């Protein structure tokens, strides 16, 4: 009975995830192939228009097409979020694997460095970096990478430490595999699942961070169609034209929700214990 | 005189029967061994008699202890019985000890619960008991992780026999030990049984563990009893093919050289 429930839930998540993907894809196709607006084309005669076939989401205070901006914002917000995530993983995982596998002094050194980074909350680092180097999406990304790689290093390390002592690693050694091959062939497959789960959950958090810091003016700068920045620009109109805030807000919610559901889905999928039970 | 009489005991997990209507008696001071591979229902039988079944398992039938059905006892009656007349020894000796309490503290708490003794008397009795199971009195101040598996299992045997129970239920007490320590613990158990005259319900998967000490043998397979009788008759004239294959797989030491020769009948049970 419980298993049936879990299966149904997993299927529902899958359907929902696919639905969001299809929705985004079809709206994007409609906007880019049929409408073809310039996201930064200012036309003060067409400002604050309600929805129409020409402007499905209306226009903003400078007469720019909202749908186009939201969709390009997807590219910007999610794209940058993804980039930051990828770099954090690329830095953190090798460090964690090496620390865990080598142990001893290397391990202690790398992990103390990681601890030092862990001591600062991401928002604070972002604000400090913007203060030092000026506001901008690049500094924001740098801050995110600086803070996030630690999580991946720690995750990779703990997984490697747990697996390292198992007999099959000893067997690999006895079978003459080099340390690099053992790490790649035997330890890495254990990491992929864990890392995908953490990364997909992190993606949502990073997108929220980019948007919220852009909202307070520390991330992407206008006229870039970043969702957080769009929310900020829409503030003066929130009583007269609330749609200007609702669309970017909805976009953020949808993507964050998507990322969380994806994380849950992957966690269930990579759960080895569940595999064994089946 | 019959101490425990199990009649038509059935244990089910939902609709799935794990033990299928088995019956047997244990006389006072007798050593009864139940042998079976994992999944044969032998441990479930022991848990059912001790009222230690997991909540999703339901037992039916009777387990008459001195004529009274234990399966119908209330929680209070059961607790009194466990404290005085029935003791348990488990396979998982590690789980039987709280890791951050000394061995002495385990003894002390147990003695406090069951006897009216002064602190000094309790300590003396605990140390005597440790010695009686072949451990040094210094173990009193040690923590469980400082003891080997065999030493821990000896301690739990010492605890189980402190109240001089009439019945000891030993559920694979040697399965987690290496075979040398296992045989040593087994011999200790046999010595203590001789000394105290308690009856023993001994669960094992290894026929070698019952050769020497058991009085009665029950062989279980897939929840049912396939063979039952006193030791000599079961070992001399096994009726069931399964018993015979268990016997070939665990010969006496002098026959071990021949173990790997001969025909390959046992391969029916491969893996």
């Amino acid at each position: 009975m419980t298993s049936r429930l879990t299966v149904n839930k997993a299927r529902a998540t899958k359907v929902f995830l696919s639905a969001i993907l299809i929705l985004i894809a079809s709206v994007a196709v409609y906007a880019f192939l049929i409408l073809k607006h310039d996201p930064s084309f200012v036309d003060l005669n067409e400002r604050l228009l309600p929805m129409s076939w020409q402007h499905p989401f209306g226009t903003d205070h400078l007469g720019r097409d909202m749908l186009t901006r939201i969709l390009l914002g997807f590219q910007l917000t999610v794209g940058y979020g993804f980039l930051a995530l990828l770099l954090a993983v690329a830095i953190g995982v090798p460090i964690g694997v090496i620390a865990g596998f080598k142990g001893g002094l290397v391990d202690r050194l790398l992990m103390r460095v990681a601890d030092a980074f862990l001591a600062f909350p991401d928002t604070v680092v972002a604000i400090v970096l913007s203060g030092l180097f000026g506001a901008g999406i690049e500094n924001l990304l740098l801050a995110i990478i600086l803070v996030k790689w630690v999580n991946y290093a720690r995750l990779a390390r703990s997984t490697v430490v747990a697996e390292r002592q198992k007999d099959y690693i000893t067997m690999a050694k006895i079978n003459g595999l080099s340390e690099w091959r053992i790490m790649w062939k035997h330890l890495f497959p254990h990491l992929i699942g864990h890392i995908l789960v953490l990364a997909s959950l992190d993606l949502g958090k990073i997108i929220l961070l980019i948007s919220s810091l852009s909202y307070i003016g520390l991330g992407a700068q206008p006229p870039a169609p970043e969702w957080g920045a769009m929310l900020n620009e829409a503030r003066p109109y929130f009583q007269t034209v609330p749609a200007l805030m609702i669309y970017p807000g909805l976009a953020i919610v949808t993507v964050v929700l998507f990322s969380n559901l994806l994380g849950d889905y992957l966690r269930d999928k990579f759960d080895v214990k569940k595999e064994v039970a089946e | 005189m019959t101490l425990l009489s199990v009649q038509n005991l059935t244990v089910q997990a939902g609709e799935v029967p794990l033990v299928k209507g088995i019956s047997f008696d244990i006389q006072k001071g007798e050593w009864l061994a139940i042998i079976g591979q994992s999944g044969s229902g032998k441990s479930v039988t022991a848990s059912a008699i001790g009222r230690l079944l997991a909540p999703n398992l339901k037992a039916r039938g009777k387990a008459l202890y001195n004529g009274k059905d234990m399966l119908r006892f209330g929680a209070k009656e059961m607790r009194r019985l466990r404290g005085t007349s029935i003791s348990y020894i488990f396979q998982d000796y590690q789980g039987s000890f709280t890791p951050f309490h000394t061995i002495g503290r385990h003894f002390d708490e147990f003695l406090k619960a069951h006897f009216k003794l002064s602190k000094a008397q309790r300590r003396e009795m605990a140390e005597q008991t440790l010695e009686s199971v072949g451990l040094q009195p210094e173990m009193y101040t040690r923590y469980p992780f400082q003891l080997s598996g065999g030493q821990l299992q000896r301690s739990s045997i010492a605890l189980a026999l402190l109240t001089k129970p009439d019945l000891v239920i030993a559920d694979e007490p040697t399965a987690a030990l290496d075979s040398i320590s296992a045989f040593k613990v087994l011999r200790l158990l046999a010595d203590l049984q001789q000394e105290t005259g308690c009856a023993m319900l001994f669960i094992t998967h290894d026929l070698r563990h019952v050769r020497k000490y058991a009085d009665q043998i029950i062989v279980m397979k897939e929840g049912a009893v396939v063979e039952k009788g006193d030791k000599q008759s079961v070992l001399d004239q096994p009726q069931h093919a399964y018993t015979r294959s268990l016997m070939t797989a665990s010969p006496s030491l002098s026959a071990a050289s021949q173990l790997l020769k001969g025909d390959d009948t046992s391969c029916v049970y491969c893996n």
Partner: protein
Amino acid sequence: MRLLQLNDVQKSYQPGIPVLKDINFSLDRKECLGIVGESGCGKSTLARCILQLEGLDQGEILFEGTPLHNKTERDIRPYRRQLQTVMQNPASSLNPKLKIRHSLMEPFRQYGAQVSLTHFQHGSEEEMARQLMEAVELSPDLLSRYPHELSGGQKQRISIARAISLEPALVVLDEPTSSLDVLTQMSILKLLDHLRDALDLSYLFISHDLLAIQALSQKILVMKEGQIVDRFEKGDLFAHERHPYTKQLVSLFD
């Protein structure tokens, strides 16, 4: 020349607490030497030293006359294919994330090209896998399964197949039957005995089970507290001149 020779081997993890003391013994080709002892007697450490997973404090380990001890991993690697092992726990000696085929064929992938085989036919990977599965009496269908889909006995057979895949000179069997039930234990012992004959292997068989040791080995060493206290031919187990500890073991097991 002896296949394996240990001279005065000493090993301790903490100063003053020796785990192995003055270990001397040798092993010939096609021989099975049994080492019996309680847990904690140092027999598993001995296995790790012979497999070059641990260094020595003193003494030497010679393999066909060549010293193996305290070499770098790179220098050891050429010997690894001659020196294989089967470990106690079948559940953990196979990587749970890899298919059986992958784990089984790992040594062959690593060394296959350089090795000339006498008993197996050197062929494609698929052909080798099939021969190995046949040698350990398993269906080739299992190759595409994952370890958790196999029983303990089946997993142990896979570990054995992997260990013999390059026809090594010596297989260290570190309690290969201890975590299996009696009937499976017996079938694994039979398989090991058969393979030694068929493939001209030598075994160093380590176990706490005197019965299994007596069944499989020709010579037996008894270990106690890091030392070898008794050594004898299989047939002399019950002889009068046995060490008191051996006699105690016999009385326990008989």
